[in-house]
């Protein structure tokens, strides 16, 4: 059996996916989700073979859902918008169904899925997650150990600190831990708003109160809330250009 999770916030869209899937005995619906949060949870719990995923959903869109998955089902996007097709290709989606679609087109998709699942091919999660977010990133999505998902708009981030193999995102005093390399996050954020001021620090430059000379050739950034962060020489050069 090919276990499938359906994700769409509109009920008629889920209905037609369910109806078309029920015509193929090899496919089984493992879960139906009405938003991205449910989708992340369902994939973690069910480890499905196939994810039929809408793109435009509240809070967490289809691409953000993919970025949060720690399993790698075959992904097929189902959307009324054709403008996401290129990004879908980037994240190795197997297919891209445009609403409304015919049953024939749906069957073709199922055949491709069948073939791929039989061959046991799955894209490695790590290869997917870095390529797939909107650039520059608008929201940072964090998945906590207990499975809870937190969405942080980038404007709310004060700074990001590297900590071992993870990062700590500091926002209004709260410290949120995320498994990601600081360099990777830096490359996803808008470089005119977030500056790598130091090997271990990525700073939202709107938070800077002033830059002070700390010792000869070494500077600190003083934030509005009084926090002091070290600024490396190359970090200072970048800041000077931007400010």
């Amino acid at each position: 059996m090919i276990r499938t999770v359906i994700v769409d916030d509109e009920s008629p869209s889920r209905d037609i996916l369910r109806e078309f899937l029920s015509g193929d005995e090899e496919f089984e619906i493992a879960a139906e989700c009405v938003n991205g949060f449910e989708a992340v949870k369902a994939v973690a719990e069910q480890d499905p073979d196939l994810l039929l995923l809408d793109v435009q959903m509240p809070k967490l869109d289809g691409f953000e859902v993919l970025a949060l998955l720690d399993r790698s089902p075959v992904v097929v996007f189902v959307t009324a918008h054709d403008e996401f097709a290129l990004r879908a290709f980037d994240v190795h989606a197997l297919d891209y169904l445009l609403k409304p679609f015919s049953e024939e087109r749906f069957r073709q998709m199922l055949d491709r899925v069948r073939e791929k699942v039989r061959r046991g091919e799955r894209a490695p999660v790590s290869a997917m997650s870095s390529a797939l977010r909107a650039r520059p990133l608008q929201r940072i999505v964090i998945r906590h150990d207990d499975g809870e998902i937190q969405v942080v708009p980038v404007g709310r981030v004060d700074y990001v600190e590297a900590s071992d193999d993870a990062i700590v995102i500091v926002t209004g005093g709260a410290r949120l831990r995320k498994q990601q390399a600081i360099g990777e996050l830096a490359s996803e954020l808008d470089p005119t708003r977030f500056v790598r001021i130091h090997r271990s620090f990525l700073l939202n430059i709107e938070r800077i109160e002033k830059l002070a000379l700390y010792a000869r050739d070494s500077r600190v950034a003083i934030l509005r809330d009084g926090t002091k962060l070290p600024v490396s020489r190359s970090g200072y050069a970048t800041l000077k250009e931007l400010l």
Partner: protein
Amino acid sequence: MKTPEPNQHPTIALYAMAALTGVSLATSALLLWSTGVPAGPAIVAAAPPSLLLGVIGLASRFLCKAMPLREASRSSIAAAHAGSAVAASSLWLVIWRAWLAILARGSGTAIKPDFSLLFGLGVMLYFAAVAVHYLMLELDASREAEEAALRYRVLAREAELRAFKAQLDPHFLFNSLNAIASLCGTRPLDAREMTQKLADFFRLVLRFGSLQEVTLSEEIDLVSRYLSIEKVRFGDRLDVHIEVDERAGNCKVPPLLLQPLVENAVRHGVASMLEGGRLEIRASMNDEALRIRIDNPADPERTDVRGEGIGLQNARGRLGAISEGRARLDAFERAGQFRVDIELPQ
């Protein structure tokens, strides 16, 4: 709206002044000739004062502009130009005298024209120049008014076209068709109803596209049809509340004024909320103005926030065009609620 500087016939004014110089030269030379001065010396004598009169005539344009016929009172215009005519003509006599004195010193024969006649001629030519200036200014003013009216018409037309295009958002159509396709399998009667709703909606949009104005009730009817289609897709997530008082319902509004705003309220508002929310439309008449308010929840963390969207700018442009700037449209977002307020004086 910035009004471009109207064309003020500067070159035509210059031609008119050259003509004034010519007329002045001809008449005053003729005057001298009639008193027995030979033609050649008469023209030489008349040339510099005529040139001066041309310049004075040109300068009188500024006085004409400062005292427009429509705004300044008749008596003040008459007094200003009479005074100015006497001054100009006196100046012209001074030049005549000075120039004739120079000529007399050079040739030994003095020309003695009738200065009172020359004075009268100066006054007449001055008034001729003033008449020409006022004629030009009136032409400018009427053309300007025509251009302003045309600009408003073009603006209104453009806004209509944009609104009409925005109306036909293909994703609304694709999503609705997808819903119909889905209903066909499970609830064929609902599918039939939805095709009917969709057809009625688009027929109404097409009809509105060709109208100059509709009543608010008609616009609200269109909006309700739209919302009933979206309700099939969003289900309980979309809660609609519409309240329009009778006087407000009879007011005239530009067709498709509210539709794009309501569409935004659904697409960027209610649809951005996990649990959906309540879309409220209220309209009432007070203080002789139609007031319309649209309220909807919106996720402050949604990613499609891009300042003021085309829908709002369009609606504001159309309101401005039909009311010549008297209508207002304000949009705010606070604490997860989005609000649009429209005030249209009747």
